[in-house]
């Protein structure tokens, strides 16, 4: 089922939680709503679910406008951040609840579908328990089964992984993604964790202060962030930024910043006549070399080993740059090092508007 949000706005009193949001999801697509706390993700999801009424704008499922419909008439399944399992019902009763409310489905079919849904998320052996007798991960599976049992057209997930421990989160990430593809259900997934969004979603909508910042595939968000906010929000550790001046030399455009001077590739050439820019470079696109070989030299400020790699902060003039170094790197605090910049991986943003220049 295709989902379209048109100029969707929600105000609580004077506060606009979501502003003029335009978003289109293809049938079967897995879309993540990503953004920092309070940016309006849950509000957006609750409007799609029909729990909040939009202040203005439209919501379409397929070609049908649904913003006047009660949640029960929208054909959605939803997993809440708190899981929202009914404490007075067993697991089987929880999962069967959406079916029980529909007169058309008899008891035998209901039982059969409850077992089927439970089997899908591998909780068949827990059907007689109460939610209070389950672990967080098991509760989460019950919530998933309950959301899927009525075979909805659209699945909504509000931070489904944030209450799980790191290990389980990783496992469930893969399972939810697989389940979504298996069923082929259009899904909207809310998260504030960029790693979750990037690893699970087909497309990611980045939000900030109720506004859409970018809507693109994970690859694109990473490779060509549309503005500085997205560039900083996507990727760990975050991108390094510094002010740069753009000038020309021998007919090509060069950027100068902090003693670094690099020639821009054609893809990086700014539209228009920008002279000032904010230059961004990801830690993984800087490498530590001997002081003589680098585009710039600096001093090791701190080294954080992470096992597979090390994060090294290097003081360059007034600025501290984050660099990812291989585990073999043996520099110590205070060492002088050179930094080599992968010129083709530099990003340039307008210093005032923050928009991408190229």
């Amino acid at each position: 089922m295709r989902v379209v949000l048109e100029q969707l706005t929600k105000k609580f009193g004077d506060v606009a939680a979501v502003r003029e949001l335009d978003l289109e999801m293809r049938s079967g697509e897995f879309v993540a709503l990503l953004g920092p706390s309070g940016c309006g993700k849950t509000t957006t999801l609750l409007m799609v679910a029909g729990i909040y009424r939009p202040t203005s704008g439209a919501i379409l499922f397929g070609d049908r406008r649904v913003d006047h419909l009660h949640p029960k008439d929208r054909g959605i399944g939803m997993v809440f951040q708190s899981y929202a399992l009914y404490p007075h019902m067993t697991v089987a009763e929880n999962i069967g609840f959406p079916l029980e409310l529909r007169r058309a489905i008899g008891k035998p079919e209901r039982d059969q579908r409850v077992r089927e849904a439970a089997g899908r998320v591998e909780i068949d052996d827990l059907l007689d328990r109460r939610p209070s007798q389950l672990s967080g991960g098991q509760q989460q599976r019950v919530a998933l089964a309950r959301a899927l049992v009525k075979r909805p057209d659209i699945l909504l997930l509000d931070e489904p992984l944030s209450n799980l421990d790191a290990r389980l989160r990783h496992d469930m990430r893969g399972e939810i993604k697989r389940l979504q593809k298996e069923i082929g259900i259009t899904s909207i997934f809310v998260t504030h964790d960029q790693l979750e969004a990037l690893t699970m979603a087909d497309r990611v909508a980045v939000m900030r202060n109720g506004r859409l910042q970018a809507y693109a595939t994970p690859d694109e968000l990473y490779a060509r962030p549309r503005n500085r906010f997205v560039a900083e929000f996507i990727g760990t550790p975050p991108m390094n930024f510094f002010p740069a001046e753009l000038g020309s030399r021998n007919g090509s455009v060069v950027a100068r910043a902090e003693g670094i001077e690099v020639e821009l590739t054609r893809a990086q050439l700014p539209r228009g006549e920008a002279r000032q820019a904010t230059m961004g470079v990801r830690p993984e696109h800087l490498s530590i070399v001997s002081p003589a070989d680098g585009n710039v030299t600096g001093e090791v400020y701190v080294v954080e080993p992470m096992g597979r790699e090390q994060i090294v902060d290097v003081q360059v003039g007034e600025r501290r740059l984050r660099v990812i170094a291989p585990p073999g790197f043996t520099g110590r605090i205070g060492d002088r090092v050179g930094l080599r910049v992968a010129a083709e991986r530099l990003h340039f943003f307008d210093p005032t508007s923050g928009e991408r220049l190229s």
Partner: protein
Amino acid sequence: MARIEEITLPRERPTPARWRFNATALLFMGPAMVLVLVFFIAPVIITFAMSFTDLATSTGLSNWQWIGPENYARIFRSQFWLPILGNTLVYVAVVLAFNVIVGLGVALLSVHMEPKAGGVFRALWLLPRISPSVVYALMWTWAAASPPFGMLNYVVAPFGLEPRYWIQSDPWLIVIFINGFVGASFGMLILTSAIKAIPEDLFRAAQVDGASALQVIRRITLPLIKWPILFVLVYQTMSLFASYEYIYLTTNGGPGLFATETWSLWAFHSALSNYYGNLEFAYGAALAAILVIMGLGISMVLLRVFRFGQLVAEPRVEVE
């Protein structure tokens, strides 16, 4: 090599330390225990003891005697004990139902309203409770005054009802309404906060699952506030058995001989407000003792009906 069967686990020995006199604990509990003893247990014992004497104004505090169960015998010899018991049961049952149903209804309505309107609505229902009993009762006697006065007569006039002196013509109606409206606020307060303690997500989930507003109430709200409802039921039963002040202030057990007299009012009349000026404290104490036993009995039945043990074993409201 030892076989598995041969391994004996050290048996857990009873721990006498647990039962040892714990002076510190007693020190902390002491003040509360004294209060409970003086204000809760002692009055019950004194009431029971007094019911086996002939203490009254005529005997004074010096001339009374133990007379055994004579007071009880006298109660059951009286031609009024059965009608009064009937009155009491009707009064408790009907007012209890009114209190709990209206209290629950107001609680449900008010939480589904816009928050400010809900607050005002609840405050209105609280008015009878926060106004002094005498003022509240007086308002009712005025409202139900004899024609051509009485606001009630004006209210019912459009429905084609004849004006009348309600306290005389329909005393039970007045007794039930005056107690019902004041008592409903108790259930309303307890149940409102109980409903508000249910995580919002449960209601949202139920809506997404396809429940209508009524189904949400029946399938989610009510089961989750079973425990507070039971509490309100038991508490109100006890207090209704013991309460008489609004009846006293309106019909005073009348009209006529004991038409709306309840057991507690009978005890009050006998012990503290006798027509003949001879206040029969001991007789009143016997009546009160029976009241205590009735209250306990009914509460126990209620707890059994609602399977109390199962209720407390079960978690009440839990997030996640």
